[in-house]
């Protein structure tokens, strides 16, 4: 490429590069606009309508869907509470277990094998996890009961999923089992990337295992912890597959989540406008959590 007029040639090349760049971006942007961005806009719009989804008839109702959700729809309020409790549990417990296991395993020979064992459930689809556990809890199998009997605690045997008081906790156990698999992979890799010398120097200086964990491991896996908590939070807020296969929100909505109640309203009760409004609320909740997390992640960087 000969450049006769340096200045003009350069701008032309820049313009050409821009054109090429947009061509490279075109397929991704096109698909994203049609199947992601535009539907989001439409959902926000539908949220202001009463619409069965079957016909063309849509009635503008303003904010009524949102008002109804937070005032008269007791199931929605319950599902909101359940979703928030589940998010708290599924963001905290797998993170703590994953970090603890990773710190433990990375000190053992063959730690990678143990990590793979804990990781295994994460490979299994949530639908399959839900189906496996619904079968484990099935009163005709009742694996927890067999375990309790074996240790002499027959008195504790219980229909964990069938009882309103215990259903949510019981439904979250498989979630913890699966999510911990994700957490341990991230933490194990993060700990492996910490130079061994740091730990050895601490040991020479007489630091105990606990001290090394609190003073070296924990501060240096902070980045990984943010990622794990963010992912777990997002997945937990959207929790659908597990509940849909395990309890369908039963008994009496004790395990109902925003995502399952939204799905039921949209595709079972044919309240598409209402379902769309509910999905917008779910999106706003996720957005809220995202903002909190971004602040958490960036505040630490300023301090450091």
């Amino acid at each position: 490429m000969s450049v006769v007029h340096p200045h003009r040639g350069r701008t032309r090349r820049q313009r050409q590069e821009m054109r090429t760049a947009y061509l490279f971006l075109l397929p991704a942007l096109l698909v994203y606009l049609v199947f992601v961005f535009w539907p989001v806009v439409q959902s926000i719009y539908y949220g202001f309508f009463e619409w069965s989804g079957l016909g063309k008839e849509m009635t503008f109702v303003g904010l009524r869907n949102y008002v109804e959700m937070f005032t008269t729809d007791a199931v929605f309020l319950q599902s909101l509470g359940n979703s928030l409790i589940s998010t708290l549990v599924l963001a905290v417990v797998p993170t703590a277990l994953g970090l603890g296991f990773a710190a433990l395993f990375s000190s053992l020979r063959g730690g990678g094998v143990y990590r793979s064992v804990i990781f295994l459930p994460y490979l299994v689809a949530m639908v399959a996890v839900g189906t496996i556990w619904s079968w484990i809890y099935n009163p005709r199998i009742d694996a927890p009961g067999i375990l309790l009997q074996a240790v002499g605690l027959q008195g504790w045997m219980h229909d964990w999923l069938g009882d309103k008081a215990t259903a949510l906790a019981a439904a979250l156990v498989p979630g913890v089992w699966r999510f911990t698999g994700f957490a341990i992979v991230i933490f194990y890799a993060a700990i492996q990337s910490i130079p061994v010398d740091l730990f050895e120097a601490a040991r020479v200086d007489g630091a105990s295992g606990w001290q090394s964990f609190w003073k070296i491991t924990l501060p240096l896996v902070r980045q990984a912890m943010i990622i794990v908590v963010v992912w777990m939070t997002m997945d937990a807020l959207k929790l659908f597959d597990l509940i849909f296969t395990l309890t369908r929100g039963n008994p009496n909505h004790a395990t109902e989540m925003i995502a399952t109640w939204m799905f039921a309203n949209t595709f079972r009760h044919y309240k598409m406008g209402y379902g769309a409004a509910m999905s917008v609320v779910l999106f706003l909740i996720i957005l809220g959590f995202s903002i909190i997390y971004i602040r958490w992640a960036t505040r630490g960087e300023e301090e450091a």
Partner: protein
Amino acid sequence: MSASADKRPRIRWGRVRAGRLVLELLVVLLCLAWLSPFYLLLVNTFKTMPEISASPVALPQSLRLDAYAKAWKEAHLGDYYKNSLAIASVSVVLSVGVSSLAAYAFSRMRFLGKQALFFFLLAGVMLPLQVVLVPLYRLMSGLDLLSSYRGMIALYVAFTIPFGVFILTGFFKTVPVEIEEAALIDGCSRFQAYWKVALPLAAPGLVTMTILEFVWFWNEYLVALTFIQEEAMRTVMLGVMVMANTFQLDFSKLTAGIVISVVPPIIVYIFFQKYLIRGLTAGALK
């Protein structure tokens, strides 16, 4: 973080050798407990219903495999396998292709609105699928794409573009640009530089995305549930849901069916462990 990270033990818990042995024993017990649901799942595929009723935890009397054959046939898992494989593999190729094109532009070229466009795409990572279900259901039925490979593939590609572009842009940035620049000076077009130089150099990143997305698509449920209504078009995960109902009185068939459904991700993990782990950790390293 390199894959060849130093594998020497980190914290040494306890100073006494015996104490460490006890610790190791406890870890083995923990792992066995963690695997116990898989034990229950596997062991009951070989049993008859009376055997299961007698004891779900006991070992089977014989290694009978007919539950697998029955589940495969009666739940039409063969057809569903074909559907899942077709949808997942085409989606992966298109998604990685389209994402890598965009990622190449973001990592190599200068253009107006680059940052804004990047964040616009990235915002999709946190978007819950639920938000787009209702409008997409309308769109897909309007385009007659319900219960079709094309419809499912289009949706899967669209939903993975944000994550794919984000991760692949990171990968391209780690590939040195000098060879490409040389190729461009030698008269290669941008597309040739991307296709013949950048893509092969970013191959580990592409394999990572391929593996990760394949497992996602294989395990995906909500989109399949919403947009596939014809029985013949069901994916394996929808099949699992169906089996949970039709086989609820025959536990050996149900468990065998579940085992069959989780085989592909396990195989992928066995053969591509390094890539899968790298893909999952890719976000955490940035």
